[in-house]
């Protein structure tokens, strides 16, 4: 799937989940609950390859997803 679509989707989710200390957790839960593994993997790859193009929150989301995957 086109990563620009995934990026857009993730950024839209970030915009709509209120900013708190646990926002990154809620976003990562959302991605685990509703995105296919392939979508998550593609998004993970995109963020890790271009970290500075993504917000701090989305970077934390990806770290959280990786931590969960490795757990």
């Amino acid at each position, binding site marked *: *799937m*086109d990563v620009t*679509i995934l990026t857009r989707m993730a950024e839209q989710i970030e915009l709509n989940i209120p900013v708190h200390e646990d926002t990154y957790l809620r976003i990562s839960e959302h991605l685990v609950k509703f*995105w*296919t593994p392939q979508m998550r993997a593609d998004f993970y790859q995109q963020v890790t390859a271009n970290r500075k193009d993504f917000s701090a929150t989305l970077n934390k989301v990806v770290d959280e997803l990786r931590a969960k995957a490795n757990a």
Partner: protein
Amino acid sequence: MTVVSDPRGTMPMRSGIGEADYGTPKSASDVLVNVTIDGQSHLVPLGTSIMRAAGEAGCDIPKLCATDSLQPFGSCRMCLVEIDGRKGTPASCTTPVEEGMVVRTQTAKVAKLRKGVMELYISDHPLDCLTCSANGDCELQDMAGVSGLREVRYGIGKNHLDAPTDSSNPYFSFDESKCIVCNRCVRACDEVQGTLALTIEGRGFNSKVSPGGLNFLSSECVSCGACVQACPTATLQEKSVIDLGMPTRTVETTCAYCGVGCSFNAELRGDELIRMVPTKTGGANEGHSCVKGRFAWGYASHSDRVTTPMMREKITDEWRVVSWDEAIQFTATKFKAIQEKYGDNSIGGISSSRCTNEEIFVVQKMVRAAFGNNNIDTCARVCHSPTGYGLSTTFGTSAGTQDFKSVAHSDVIVVIGANPTDAHPVFASRMKRRIRAGAKLIVIDPRKIDLVESAHIKADFHLPLQPGTNVAVINAIAHVIATEGLIDEEFVAQRCDPGQFKRWRAFIELPENSPEVVAAQSGVPAQLIREAARMYANGTNSAIYYGLGVTEHSQGSTMVMGMANLAMATGNIGREGVGINPLRGQNNVQGACDMGSFPHELSGYRHVSDNAVREQFEMLWDVKLLPDPGMRIPNMFDNAISGEFRGVFVHGEDIAQSDPNVKHVHRALESMDLVVVQDLFLNETSKFAHVFLPGTSFLEKDGTFTNAERRINRVRPVMAARNGKQEWQIVCEIAQAMGYEMHYDNAAAIMDEIAQITPTFKGVSFAMLDQVGSVQWPCNDAAPTGTPIMHIDNFVRGQGQFMETPFVPTEERSNRKFPLLLTTGRILSQYNVGAQTRRTQNTTWHTQDLLEIHEADAAMRGIVDGQKIAITSRIGETILTAHVTQRVPAGVVHTTFHHPQSGANVITTEFSDWATNCPEYKVTAVEIRPAESSAPATNTLDEVLTKV
């Protein structure tokens, strides 16, 4: 009169094949009084009319102007009785029973009076009973028999026997010569439908029923059929009965149009359907209907129906008719070949909310068990998926909180982004009845829908917000409630998560959510928001009803949570008259979601990652299931274009017309190696299909639908399946051909499996439904008779969860190039993509999709009413006909999407709800100009940009 039993054996039936008619409505009183009727003593609820008490006791009192769907009127003088201790002969319909009352219904005195009255009626009525279309189903004929009338002594005098017949309505005629001016049609239009289109014109001998306009077709009549139903003679008669004769048998079933889910008796003679008559015992409709359910069923036998399987190698080839075996083997082999080449995830399925629960259940089972993935999605994706997300998050389950009857207890009704009089007309009649009885009404909608102002209805507040600002407005309403001390602190403390409430309260009280700030964003004056908020919060019972104007936005899920917050904050949850109520677009949206046809959850809204739940399914289905969600419909399209998704089974859903940005959808479909369409007609999607599997109409299906109030209703086969197979059988055969054993003896066995594996359906079976009629889930050990109202003591999730709902404006905004906002909707006589209604005489009312445009916007562009106009968005362009009106505000235009040639979804965008990807159909920035030619055009983005 013959007394027979109805199919469920719960009620006596009389006169032809219709339901029993006790003359006046049932009393709701719990107090019983003792009354003696014709020597027999009976206990009867206080408030019951003598007529009804006698009827229930088996002593039928003659009547003409009375029917139990209407309030007593007392005009025909046929129901006169004698009461001990009272003078005269009072009308039994208007006289309520009293304790100790002794009534005599069959005395010589009343018999003589009735005979005299009857003689007068018959003296001005054609004596053509043997050739009359109502012969055998005519109350006037019955009463003439009952009263013993043998001759009419009056000679030929002044009469109405030559009065004209109005045949303008496509479905029924009005033969004035047979009218006895009993007023039942006029009262039905007032009391049942609430349109007040009919009246009695003239006085005395010149009194006659009038539809107000030139004729029925040009009048305000909405063709709901209530008047036809109420008519005791052949004056108002279905044309199908006039043409084909009186039906002789009935099959009770459920309408397949909107989410109201009306119960009907399909009345047949032999195998020929003569008419559909709404059943009084139907829990959702209680004897009422709309023009679609009552009359627009002819598509089921339309010549366009495809009844044999067809195949082709390439979508440019001609279709060739094949056997079922060949079609099923080809489908299975090709799906397997695609999976071998591109992986298990390369195929999927899309289920339809028009199909039965049983059909939907087997489709999602085929995908999960035979395809071996979770790539199953449903057309609810594009309508009410945000309802699922929002209500699950806040309350714990994806369903409306009330039954339809609940609205009768509402004091304040809020309608948001819904147009019930067009899209859910039978429920709208209930709602209007309550509003006419005094409930307050708040409408939040960009358009001035009929509920804002129509006959005897006027909204107390209409908040005409800019499309895309729902969340801002709901937040502002909540802000007023929070900051003006209108929160039901006791309810919140007892029922809701305190931490979440605290967060929400801090958020909602922020100045950015104040009406004064939101006024600038939404266009709704701050004072209007404040007053509406106070009205909602101060209502004893305040209820919210909403539709796709809430969900089909980039913040659809946020808005659903915003409404849930409002209900919790004011304690408007868990009793009659309150709640959050999605008005589902299609007949089985609720069921499609319940049956596990979203890619992330199994039946009963249980996530696929739940190991315990998955293990239950794995045991039962003898297959390993995946723990991760599959693709949603838009993911399927995107992955098809990128080459990863290669085959799809589309079950009863015309995605090539109904999904947004259809050019994108077409590209996705063109990219696939196998598109299998199962449907009634060759639709837009089938243009991209390699296999076409003919489906069954609702008149041929055996199963259940679940309506917007969670009511599970039986759908019974009225006639044999034209394609020779039930759809669930076809799906099972594909699964089997793919190597997965899937077999059921009948549809009842599928429901048994659903009940076995789905806790909220545990008590449901066909046998149970045949006995009780219908039931609202949850139906299980804790609620064996179902659950009309949810969250009474606790929320399904335990404590109600307030959610912060920040307003994030949609990216789709008007600008200099596209200065208008397009929003889309439905019209009464048509339904969704029109595949059904366009193949009926409903096209009489809606021959094309129109573009509503405000007169100021029209004038600015030199556009006049009826002119062809080109409408352009950044996605595409199409041609529509302008309807200049004040129904939409300046800056907003509106159209419907019932006709494929209109191409409304050629111009809608790829934007969608952040949580569910439900498309943002309700906001598209557009520009409009007079069309250069009248030929419809659907151009690509490049073509549009070249023109612009």
